[in-house]
């Protein structure tokens, strides 16, 4: 699909969608949103880019193989789970929170890192699947 309109639009949509996905990620926890939805939106951004500019360009843009994001994300989520075990001898997955909210981001705790892990895994899985399918098609 080499249309000029889609190509131009996707160049602007990619950063906008990525920022939006991070917004959705941070909005999570108490409001609708979170790592899973955020990850899907981020994946959509790259898929749209691949539609407009071709698969190879999107791969160059990503630099790393999306499959690599899976263990990284899982590792991050795992760390956030065992942080209370290692640090405070609390049960697995107990939420640890900074006492004061940060500007813009809001309250930061181990749950956020878990969500970031989910975000990375979802981006990795979705992009791996879609890239593999469109390569073989």
């Amino acid at each position, binding site marked *: 699909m080499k249309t000029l309109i889609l190509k131009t639009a996707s160049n602007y949509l990619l950063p906008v969608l990525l920022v939006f996905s991070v917004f959705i990620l941070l909005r999570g926890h108490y409001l609708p949103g979170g790592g899973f939805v955020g990850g899907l939106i981020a994946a959509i951004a790259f898929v749209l880019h691949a539609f407009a500019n071709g698969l190879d360009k999107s791969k160059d843009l990503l630099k790393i193989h999306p*499959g690599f994001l*899976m*263990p990284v994300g*899982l*590792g991050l989520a*795992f760390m956030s*789970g*065992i942080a209370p*075990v290692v640090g405070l*001898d*609390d*049960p*697995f*997955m*107990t*939420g640890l929170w900074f006492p004061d909210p940060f500007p813009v981001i809001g309250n930061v705790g181990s749950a956020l890192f878990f969500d970031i892990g989910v975000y990375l895994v979802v981006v990795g899985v979705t992009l791996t699947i879609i890239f593999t399918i469109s390569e073989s098609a």
Partner: protein
Amino acid sequence: MTQQLILYPLLLQLLLSILLMFFWYRINAQRVISILGSILHLGLTIFVFSFIWNNGTQTLQAGSWEAPFGITFIADSLAITLVLLTAIAGLAVSIFSSSAMIPDRLRFGYFPIFHFLLLGLNGAFLTGDIFNLYVWFEIIIISSFVLITLGGEKAQLEGAVKYFTLNFLASMIFLTAIAVLYGLTGSLNMADLAIKVSEIENRALVQITAVLFLIGFGIKAAVFPLYFWLPASYHTPPSAVSAIFGGLLTKVGVYALIRVFSLIFVGDAFLDEILLVIAILTLFSGGVGALVQNNIKKVFSYLIICHIGYMILGLGMFTEVAIAGAIFYLIHDIIVKTNLFMVSGLIYRIKGSSSMRALGGFYSNYPKLSLLIFIPLFSLVGIPPLSGFWPKISLITASFDTQSYWGLAGIIFASFITLVVIAKLWAEVFWKNPGEIPKRKKFDYFHKMGKYRKLGFVVPIVFLSFVSLYIGFGAENIQILSSRVAQELMDKQLYIDAVFNNAQNPK
């Protein structure tokens, strides 16, 4: 730190699979990590086991959310025994698959998925929350689906479709049952459910829910009449995968049945009657199925079904002796079945065929290996003093106590059929003069392999055979263990107290 102890086996498996994913394309590194990690896991599990043996049931409220609202992890002696058996079988299969799996399959992430499967198994045994149990079942089924299709041969895909469809159906029924149960009681914590379900007035509704659970778990455990997926699929994947499936996957279903029917739906004559009938029919039909098979792996698949009957029978009779027999059989069966599927893989690598008619003369070519294989084969039959013999004493005693003579007939018939099947297999594969098996050109024959690869085949079989021998000759210790498990299962108040007393003072 002891509070957390019961989660360590689980966390270690998760860590291993994440670590292995980083080495996605480096197969040799994966082999080393998997084997070393499994050894570490076994050591850790033995430590946790001895801790629980000395200090009693341990619980953990994940995320510090108190029971019944949060997810409880509970390790009583049944759960931790099964975790220990998983670790033993996992180590053996890990070594075996590093040799037996061809690199083409390893390249697609065999080891990470394998450890995810072990993670799911550990989680399913340790959780004390019925919805969480469902989640672990999903992890198991997704990993096993990847493992069964890995390599993508035609026969494999055909088996995988049957396997996946029926297991998926089982998950759906299980989920429906959970939903109904939640509608009845408003709780998902198993200890809480044990209290609330016994207070429900409408017993018919409880019975129907229980039957839903029975169908869901029954498909997974492959009991009569829901077992057809098992012989249709278990012989298709490589034998390393079959080994972990045959040894452990159906046993998770059995574990779930034991847990649910000893804790939540307890003391219902109607349900016990159903369990007994199912068990007896499983013993008969699995045994008869095994008689007519020619492929070694299919013989073992039918024997899995047949022997699931013993455990369900023990559960159906529901006396302390019967449960102890069922648990003992479970312990013996996990080790032996894992071993036998690895043996079938070894025979296939040596001769290039799994057909009993074509095979033969194994004893004259490989006398030492044959003697080794003799141990798991005849442990399965239960020639005293090998391991399969002892649990049957408990089961037969229990069936006299409860006067279920059909059960007794089932036990004796299944033992006899197993003996016939294994004797036939021994005569065909080991003693008979070999027929003509055409040499295959591109086949990875055992005698062409290097020394270390050969060791990778033989060492896990030796390891599990020694475990089997220990279960046979050290039967007294295993009997003590299974009696203790049975005592804990018969007294559900122990389980409930362990979950709730701990919730009041979490540290």
